[in-house]
């Protein structure tokens, strides 16, 4: 199956947290002595078993994560048990490890396995010259109306990139199976940028002290502080009090609108496409579904429709795991924010412009545990479907 065959790829790629869909298991092993560590190292060297250590055996007391192919499971478990090395099994959950290969290799695999549905486009380069890739989901046509989705624009919001990966997989799995999604893709295209801020994302992986990096990594002239808030850099209410003019601030808007290549690339793509009908920008945390405006209190002309659709979307989301979202305009529901993505897209004629703020409401915040990633992605999918169905059924 598509999900099955992409899984092994997915499980060793660099989204920091990866999915294991197959009957392979990831074992969390706790060695309590140097002898046990040595045994685990030897086990890893047995080529026939094909064990892949995500957290390698290093010292007693530190967890060891081993991805074990299905056919080797029995042998490995017998080995561990007979040496009284305790382990627990993580099945079909998200397990996290240090990045080894780019997430881009997962994308390439998705394209290779689904050539009639998925293609990869490069829309530009980040400040540090990383490619900005967008996955295009399309069943044909010429310049069909399109839905844009981005995740990871704020690099510390790791639940969003993970949700993006899950969602992309979900789209390819459900096309041809789910009638509604199939009908959506038969009339509209989906453009999906999963690692919208790759420089920031790489930086959040570099050391534990950089985990909370939000912005881009551009150098600011005349300042030792780097980075611009990519969600304050858009040309909609740019530079207002809902952003900062201090390069050291987390909400620094940048020297000018679209100064950041990560932002400019999207602007250029969307404007030259000319037929984008919805723009969904995914963030965390707060459990909110927001629509314009953030830069002014005046209600958007489509406030009523956007509000009603938001209500339906969050109701659908809540049905799965009971997760409660609030919704409303950005300025009323979260705070005044100037120069944001969705205010720009709305002011450029993209009516269905929404910001998602995913789980949670502050207990873990940006450090959401892996166990919540699949439930979050599953419930978010229901809200995304509501919006995409509405876009499909209400052409303009």
């Amino acid at each position, binding site marked *: 199956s598509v999900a099955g065959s992409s899984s092994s790829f997915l499980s060793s790629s660099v989204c*920091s*947290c990866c999915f294991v869909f197959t009957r392979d298991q990831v074992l969390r092993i706790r060695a309590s002595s140097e002898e046990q560590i040595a045994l685990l190292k030897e086990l890893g060297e047995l080529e026939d078993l094909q064990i892949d250590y995500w957290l390698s055996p290093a010292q007693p007391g530190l967890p060891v994560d081993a991805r074990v192919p299905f056919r080797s499971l029995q042998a490995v478990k017998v080995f561990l048990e007979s040496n009284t090395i305790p382990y627990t099994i993580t099945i079909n959950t998200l397990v*996290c490890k240090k990045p080894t290969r780019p997430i881009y290799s997962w994308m390439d695999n998705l394209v290779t396995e689904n050539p009639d549905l998925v293609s990869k486009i490069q829309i530009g380069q980040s400040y540090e010259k990383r490619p900005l890739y967008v996955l295009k989901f399309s069943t044909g046509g010429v310049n069909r109306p399109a839905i844009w989705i981005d995740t990871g624009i704020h690099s510390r919001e790791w639940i969003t990139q993970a949700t993006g990966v899950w969602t992309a997989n979900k789209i390819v799995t459900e096309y041809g199976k789910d009638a509604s999604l199939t009908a959506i893709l038969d009339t509209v295209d989906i453009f999906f940028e999963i690692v919208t801020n790759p420089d920031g994302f790489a930086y*959040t992986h570099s050391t*534990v002290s950089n*985990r*909370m990096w*939000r912005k881009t990594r551009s150098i600011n002239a005349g300042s030792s502080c780097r980075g611009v*808030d990519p969600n304050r850099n858009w040309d909609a209410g740019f530079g207002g*009090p*809902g952003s*900062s003019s201090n390069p*050291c*601030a*987390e*909400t620094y808007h940048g020297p000018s609108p679209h100064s950041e290549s990560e932002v400019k690339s999207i602007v250029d793509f969307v404007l030259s496409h000319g037929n984008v009908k919805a723009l969904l920008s995914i963030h965390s945390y707060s459990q909110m579904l927001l629509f314009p405006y953030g830069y*002014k*209190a*005046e*209600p958007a002309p489509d406030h009523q429709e956007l509000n009603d659709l938001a209500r339906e979307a969050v109701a659908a989301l809540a049905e799965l795991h009971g997760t*409660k979202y*609030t*919704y*409303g305009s950005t*300025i*009323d*529901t*979260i*705070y*005044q*924010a100037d120069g944001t993505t969705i205010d720009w897209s709305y002011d450029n004629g993209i009516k269905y412009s929404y910001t998602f703020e995913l789980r949670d*409401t*502050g*207990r*873990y*915040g*940006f*450090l*959401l*545990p*892996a166990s*919540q990633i699949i439930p979050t992605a599953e419930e978010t999918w229901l809200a995304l479907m509501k919006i995409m169905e509405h876009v499909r059924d209400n052409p303009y």
Partner: protein
Amino acid sequence: MQRRSAARLGPLLLLLLLPLAWGEGPEPPRADGELQVSNRLAGQAARVALHYLNYRMGSPSALRALGQVRKATVKTIPGIGHKYYLQFITEDYKSSQNVGTCLATVLYLKRKPRPAVNINCTYTKDQKQTREDDYSFYKKMRQQTKPITGNDIPDSYGNIEPALEPAWALAVAGSSYLMWEKSTENLGYFMAQVKNVKQWITKDDSIDFDYLVVLHEIPTQEMISCHLRVIWTPGRPLKVKYFCLSENQRSESGEGSGTESGSTNGIFNEEEANF
């Protein structure tokens, strides 16, 4: 009915937000009345009330988080400040189970340093159990001969070592004091992470921890590091000392010992109509 009053409040909220964006500047007149339950100021005020409650309860096993705001109104008290009247549902901080409803008032004062809170809540969790859980953590820490230490709780992937979870919860209780003190009508806080914890072994009855915590500040999005010293004996007021450093090199410090004004379970004198 609610929608109309919200629409009326809209433009006036803008007037309010502009100079008050980051908590400074003169205050324009605010329209009094009912707020939408999704309104950010309502949620923010409810959180302030909960910071105060969590600090005053001083119980790592009984921490609460905001569930949903059920009702919110705001009133201007001329020359004094803005008073919020709130009704909200709370959840257990760890399990997210519903643990009761609260009625609270939060008064943001012009002259005093911190919001004045009165809060009264129902509590549906088994109080005997939470007392036992608190005591069992306390006892375990009292029995340590070697001080416990830890880093990055939760870690980058959201993991919390089970052995360190109560110490993390105590950090939440201690940070609640600091977050209550720092909160304004427009600036709110969440405790994002314990970067570091170190126990001090003491000869007296209390258990004693040094923390480095990181707070997430809204709406500025800044991550603020604060040193926190928490001294705790179950059933007694939490003692907290803190020292924060922000990106702008402003440093703030404070000290709490459970004697601050405000109330958590006294007779509620507010008129029903205000809610």
